């Protein structure tokens, strides 16, 4: 890439970052992510912590799919004017991909917020958290299901904006992702729980079972699953770039193949390493007390 091309991409990226950060849907999603976590973290004693990444994944990740797809499509409405601009579709795609740093930052902020809240207001000693399971398991869940989900939502949105041009595609993909992930999570508590790991959002914690106050964490390695999810993110970005015929270089082809191979290996490792089987916590007395008062 020439210096001029790099400078052009930088200025385009800066514009897209600002557009993303100012989008009302993203702002609402980010505020709900950080606000709900603050409310939940300060109210009573935090519980079911490893299921909390659903908050950033939904409010920031899912809304980022729609925001990124809309931003991508909005530029294409000026196709004729853009044809005369001194940059290619791939440059514009790179700039849009760079804007995914915005939801990624929200994901990181959310994780820091959760760690601070639990340090100030610690969970019950039987809670699945640092100390009751491995640090790598906990960090893998928080990063993979929280931070990477925020990043991946935006990258998937760019991919959708580039490839799917029928009206309603972003909303349909967003709903499809949620329905698909939740459907596959139905196998979490079976002997075949590893079969759920290929989906782009994997449940690792059951939530507290109301009847006995226990909670289950599921088999597999969340850390390797996070690596697999990062490969999905990279694949989404590369395939979005692939849309521009002039960008279909041998280098890009090799990158897609490389990411696919690493992703498949990471998926295999996420199924074979980590916990061998689902683990059930002792009953949480506070949860039992809540159930009894209902």
């Amino acid at each position, binding site marked *: 890439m020439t210096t001029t091309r790099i400078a052009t991409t930088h200025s385009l990226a800066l514009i897209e970052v600002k557009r993303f950060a100012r989008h009302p849907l993203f702002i609402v999603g980010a505020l709900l992510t950080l606000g709900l976590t603050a409310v939940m973290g300060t109210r009573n004693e935090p519980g079911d912590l490893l299921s909390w990444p659903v908050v950033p994944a939904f409010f920031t990740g*899912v809304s980022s799919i729609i925001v990124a797809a809309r931003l991508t499509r909005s530029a294409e409405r000026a196709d004729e004017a853009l044809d005369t601009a001194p940059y290619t579709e791939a440059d514009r795609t790179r700039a849009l991909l760079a804007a995914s740093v915005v939801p990624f930052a929200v994901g990181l902020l959310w994780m820091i917020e959760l760690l601070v809240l639990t340090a100030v207001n610690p969970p019950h000693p039987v809670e699945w958290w640092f100390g009751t399971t491995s640090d790598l398991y906990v960090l893998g869940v928080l990063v993979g299901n929280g931070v990477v989900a925020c990043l991946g939502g935006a990258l998937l949105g760019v991919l959708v904006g580039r490839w799917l041009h029928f*009206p*309603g595609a972003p909303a*349909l993909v967003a*709903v499809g992702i949620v*329905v698909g992930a939740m459907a596959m999570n139905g196998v979490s508590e079976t002997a075949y729980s590893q079969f759920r790991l290929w989906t782009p959002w994997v449940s690792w914690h059951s939530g507290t079972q109301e009847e006995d106050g226990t909670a289950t964490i599921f088999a597999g390695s969340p850390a390797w699953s996070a690596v697999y999810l990062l490969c999905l993110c990279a694949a989404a970005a590369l395939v979005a770039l692939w849309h521009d015929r002039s960008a279909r270089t041998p280098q890009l082809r090799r990158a897609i193949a490389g990411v696919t191979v690493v992703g498949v290996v990471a998926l295999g490792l996420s199924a074979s390493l980590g916990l061998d089987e689902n683990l059930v916590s002792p009953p949480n007395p506070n949860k039992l007390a809540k159930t009894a008062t209902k």
Partner: protein
Amino acid sequence: MSSLLWYAQRAVPWPVTLGATGMVALGLAAAVLWPDRVGFLVALLVAPLAIASSFVLDEPSAPAVEVAPRSASWRTGARALALLAPAAVWLSGVVLVVQRQAIGSRGGWLLIGAASMTLAMGAAALLAASGRPMPGSYVSTGAALAFLVPYMRLPLPDRAWPYPLAGFPREAVLIWLVVLTLGAAALAAALRKRIHG
């Protein structure tokens, strides 16, 4: 009737309407086949059901259509025929799911389906009558997020869980009746203002 169908066939954006309907059908089929594993999915399918109803009023040629001899209510009626597809899928799917799985009441799920579809169509009609000829993308985004949020359950006390999976409390019935009324009121107001001219 044939002219209504002819118009609906050409005017409605079928890929997204049928795509969302297909997603509802697949989800309901999975819930019927594996009720103990994915029965809870039925609550999530309200979102694609609403999306299927969001686009039927999209009119890319609004300025030309406004001066056409057909009235706004005739055109809206013709487009509304497209809703028969998601409605039929929801009706038959819910009957089968409740029969196989005994999750809450059949009437409850039918109320939820009718309310979500009416609200999406009503919101789209109101936007169309206010000069936005392509309201579908706005309504579908709102519908997707609004109808998925309750599934997150996070800030809701159990009695406010608005789906009839284990009982269907009176508060939940009230929520969906309000949604249905709001949708019907929006639709009526839009028809009074004349959709797309």
